[in-house]
């Protein structure tokens, strides 16, 4: 309130002062002669003309300074893809034509304005047109432009009409993040449909299992809406207790869910043929943390969107194309430089060191707590380049380019681990579903047992992943801390200071740390200015981090072993149960089919 008041007063005072000034100015004007606002004096003309030249110099200087300081592709370096290099060449070709035109025409404009400024004694030359000249400057740009057009369209066609398929990878955009799906061994992506998207199947991949799971999910949701509605009925009047708009919303949603199920059933679900029709999905694998690519391997990105238009943009690859809901777009590229190679380039190292310093400066100035501290190392990124809502400016995914060997280790290995666990769970579940779906009287108890077991495994997996998360977080904390200590020590060394500030710095640092043994850090480092001891301190931290890493991977291994045992155990149990069940079913079926065949034959006769 007070702020507003002050602003108003300041503005008001400003206006009053202005009006007074203008009055004085006009009085002076009257003395000088009536029409002084219409005539520009000789002095004024000259001054403006000179300012034209001054401005031109500043303007050109500013532009040239920016060109030298930033230049083209500032911070992006040579394109890291095959086609990207073509684009960069084309860009430079264009700049070499454009910049001279820019400088020359602007120069002529400002220069003529200066040279021909108004003086009473001069008279302008009457030139109304000059056909030759005009022809000349229509044709010259036309020729220059035809080079630009031909070169440009040639490059465009070579990028867009690239027929090499390469490895297929799907990039899936949603508010606000990315998922990727690799096509696996067969290099064919399994079909997907938005109607099957759910938390367990974020890409809507079509498989028999996913279809069944979606049915179950839809049914459950329909039921839950029913129960919400039923729970809110006034027992006396029979009306809903909820606001009308809410009821309609619920009902609409329910209808939509039912329609969705119907549409899946009639369009996608091919019943017993599902497994063979949608087999391509079996070896696909997904990731939502990073995109890993192989150096010199051609790729086809197939791009989809879940909700609004997004645009995957790889600045270092010079690649982007919109992700449009309801439509698949694609982009082909071949990475040529691994992340590691980029990190070794001297200019990249230098630039990233500067970036790191500027980054830390900001972090410290504003006490920013980063969830993911910047390491100061180069990384490829994927970002979103089409306005898509509140999180548009933070839709990022790390992109890693590596050699075939590194890729095999990092992707294939990890993928198989994750897959084993996932597929086991899925197995249990699908068996359960088939139990529940089939009209198997007396199987409830079995299904209950199995449910219990599956829940157990799920529980186990959940604790494991929580555990893993916690481990990971600790690890991150520690790494962050050790980076901080390192930085701190660097500062101390640079300052070569009195003991006092060393102690202050350290105690501040120690206060901030909650994980490590404060005494120890303090003793290690503050006791001396000795280089070797400081190094020791650093080593100590690295050791701590290393230890955590070890514990982490030990835990992981432990869990894997435990999980393996557990899942075998469950598997066996289920197997026996299933066998019993199947035997019984077989008997039932035999008796049933005997009855059916007799009735069928009679039916046939009638219709014929």
């Amino acid at each position, binding site marked *: 309130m007070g702020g507003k008041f002050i602003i108003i007063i300041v503005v008001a005072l400003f206006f009053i002062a202005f009006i007074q000034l203008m009055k004085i*100015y006009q009085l002076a*004007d009257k003395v000088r002669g009536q029409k002084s*606002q*219409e005539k*520009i004096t000789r002095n004024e*003309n000259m001054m*403006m003309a000179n300012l034209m030249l001054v401005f031109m110099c500043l303007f050109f200087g*500013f532009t040239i300074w*920016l060109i030298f300081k930033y230049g083209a*592709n*500032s*911070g992006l370096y040579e394109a890291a893809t095959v086609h990207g290099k073509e684009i960069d060449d*084309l860009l430079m070709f*264009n700049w070499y034509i*454009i910049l001279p035109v*820019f400088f020359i*025409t*602007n120069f002529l*404009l*400002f220069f*003529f*304005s200066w040279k*021909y400024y108004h*003086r009473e004694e*001069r008279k*302008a*030359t*009457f*030139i*109304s047109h000059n056909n030759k000249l*005009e022809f000349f400057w229509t044709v010259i740009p036309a020729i220059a*432009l035809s080079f*630009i057009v031909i070169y440009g*369209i040639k490059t*465009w066609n070579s990028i867009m009409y690239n027929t090499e398929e390469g490895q297929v990878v799907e990039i899936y955009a949603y*508010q606000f993040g990315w998922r990727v799906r690799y096509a696996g061994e067969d290099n064919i992506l399994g079909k997907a449909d*938005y109607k099957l998207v759910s938390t367990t199947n974020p890409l809507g991949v079509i498989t028999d299992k996913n279809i069944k799971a979606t049915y179950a999910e839809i049914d459950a949701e329909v039921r839950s809406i029913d129960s919400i509605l039923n729970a809110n009925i006034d027992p006396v009047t029979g009306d809903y207790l909820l606001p009308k708009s809410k009821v309609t919303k619920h009902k609409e949603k329910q209808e939509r869910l039912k329609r*969705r199920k119907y549409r899946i059933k009639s369009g996608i679900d091919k019943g017993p043929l599902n497994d063979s029709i949608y087999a391509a999905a079996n070896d696909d694998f997904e990731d939502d943390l990073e995109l890993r690519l192989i150096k010199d391997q051609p790729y086809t990105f197939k791009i989809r969107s879940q*909700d*609004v*238009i997004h*645009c995957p943009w790889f600045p270092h690859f010079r690649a982007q*194309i*919109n992700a*449009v*809901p*309801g439509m698949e777009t*694609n982009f082909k590229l071949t990475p040529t430089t691994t992340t590691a190679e980029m990190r070794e380039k001297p200019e990249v190292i230098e630039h990233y060191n500067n*970036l790191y310093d*500027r*980054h830390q400066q900001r972090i410290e*100035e*504003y006490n920013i707590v980063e969830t993911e501290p910047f390491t100061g190392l180069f990384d490829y*990124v994927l970002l979103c380049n089409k*306005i898509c*809502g*509140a999180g*548009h*400016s*933070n839709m990022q995914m790390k992109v890693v380019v590596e050699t075939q060997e590194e890729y095999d280790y990092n992707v294939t290995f990890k993928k198989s681990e994750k897959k084993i666990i996932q597929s086991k769970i899925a197995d249990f579940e699908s068996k359960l579903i088939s139990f529940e779906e089939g009209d198997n009287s007396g199987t409830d108890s079995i299904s209950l047992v199995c449910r219990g077991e599956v829940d157990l495994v799920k529980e186990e997996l959940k604790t494991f992943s929580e555990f893993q998360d916690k481990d990971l977080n600790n690890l991150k904390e520690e790494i962050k801390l050790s980076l901080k200590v390192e930085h701190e020590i660097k500062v101390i060394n640079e300052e070569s200071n009195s003991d006092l500030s060393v102690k202050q710095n350290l105690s501040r640092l120690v206060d901030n740390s909650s994980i490590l043994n404060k005494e120890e850090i303090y003793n290690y480092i503050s006791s001396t200015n000795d280089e070797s001891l400081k190094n020791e301190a650093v080593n100590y931290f690295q050791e701590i981090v290393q230890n955590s890493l070890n514990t982490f991977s030990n835990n992981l291994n432990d869990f894997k072993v435990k999980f393996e045992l557990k899942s075998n155990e469950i598997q066996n149990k289920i197997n026996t149960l299933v066998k019993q069940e199947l035997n019984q079913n077989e008997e039932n079926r035999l008796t049933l089919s005997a009855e059916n065949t007799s009735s069928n034959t009679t039916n046939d006769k009638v219709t014929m």
Partner: protein
Amino acid sequence: MSHDTHHHKESFISKYIFSHDHKMIAKQYLLTAIFMGAIGITLSALFRLKLGWPDDKFPILETLLGSDAAPEGLLNSNWYLGLVTLHGTIMVFFVLTGGLSGTFSNLLIPLQVGARDMASGLLNMIAYWLFFISSALMAVSLFIETGPAMAGWTIYPPLSVLEEFQSGSGLGMTLWLLSMTFFIASSLIGGINYIVTILNLRTKGMSMTKLPLTIWAFFITAILGVLSFPVLLSCAVLLLMDRGLGTSFYMSDIIGPESGALDATGGNPILYEHLFWFLGHPEVYIILLPALGMTSEIISTCSRKPIFGYRAMIGSMLAIGFLSFIVWGHHMFLTGMNPFLGGVFTFTTLLIAIPSAVKAFNYITTIYKGNVIMTPAMLFCIGSVSTFISGGVTGIILADSALDISQHDTYFVVGHFHIVMGMTAILGMFAGIYHWFPKMYGKMMNKRMGMVHFWATIVCGYGVFIPMHFLGEGGLPRRYYENTNFPMFDHFLDLNVMISIFATVGVIAQVIFFMNFFYSIFRGPVASLNPWKSNSLEWTTPVEHVHGNWPGEIPTVHRWPYDYSKPGKEEDFVPQHIPLTDDEEEH
């Protein structure tokens, strides 16, 4: 027409509010545009605060926008996009389409072709009031709780369809669409009126080839508007139906964060983009051409020299007008459109560079060997030509579909279009205001303040937009609420501070203009009949406005409007109504 010189008594309302007089309507447009412009540039200064100092709190934001938008002075990301969207919309449609064409077409068409008023004064008034309603609706949308439209000035669906995607796609978007519907109606009515007036109401002797270039520019602009705005209307209507009636023209296979998988199938957002840009590209020439037309007129007048290549200027405007209808695809190279079309649109777009280059060269040649009087209007014209060149050359890069892959939707685009469209048109509009202020208000604006205003504006304008090209070359996407999520852009932190400082100073510098403008309306020295010694007909009308423009007969036209410094004449100008002498050649 029937407005003879009769002077019936007018009430305040019929004179100042529901006036049918084109001069009054022009002033109404101008005031509305200045008001909207003040909002528009203030918004840009506000969101530039966030981009320049991403971590600082600015209590003024909370004071101005409320605590929903900027709790504790920290702008939230939805509102950031809302401000950008309204800034873009207001600048493009309200200031530089409605404001620019509305003001100067209305003021100058009857005066320069020699007509007593527009073909239909009533429609003209209706057009203004539709524009007014539309402006009011747009401005009001800044004050609602869920915020204004936030999907960018292009409001691409599906983002603009469902509120669950973005809070601004609720009531804010409804208001946006409603406002634009009024706006389109206003533009169409206005445009038809302009065309009819130019074709039918020219005074005796005023053949099409004796028209000032301003009129040619307004004429072509009006035709572009009449042909392209209906497409925007249908585009918006389909969007409204997708929003309200459950159709799916633009929607297919979409999952809403709240409603889950939607029913919509078979639509396509790309359809929207085609319809939108079918207006959208001609729109940038709707913005540019009037500014270029006025610039031609003022440069010629103030250089005391005929405009160089009068026919070439008309020809290039016609070429630009025609080509502007077949280049819209350059906004869509990367939508997944057929690559063959990409090649075609690259070709047609680069063709436009030719007439544009011709125009630029003709301006420069007009100044060459002239006798340039540095009135504020002339200064703004020189600035406008400079920005037309500087922004035009980078357009060549963006027109190239292959290069668009690495430049599309980055700050390079923002730098480019602000210079070529934003600055050229705004500078042209200022030039028009300074030049025709005596005609509008019968008073003179202060020239010194005009000069200061010009230098501040051009320095800050270039200071803001030239650096943006380098941000874009560094890969920085536009419409980013903050650039700090990616440490790779941290080397631009300081450059962004510089841009924001230039922007803030540039916006504050406009106060010089506002004060000069409003002060001069009331207290400025009275203008003389023809203060700039200009040839065109408007300067033969009395300083005090009269109904029907000329108290007596409308003058007959005998020559083109650019007989400046004609050899053998004593004065350095010969107005259009002066008959040719026996031995005089036309030009």
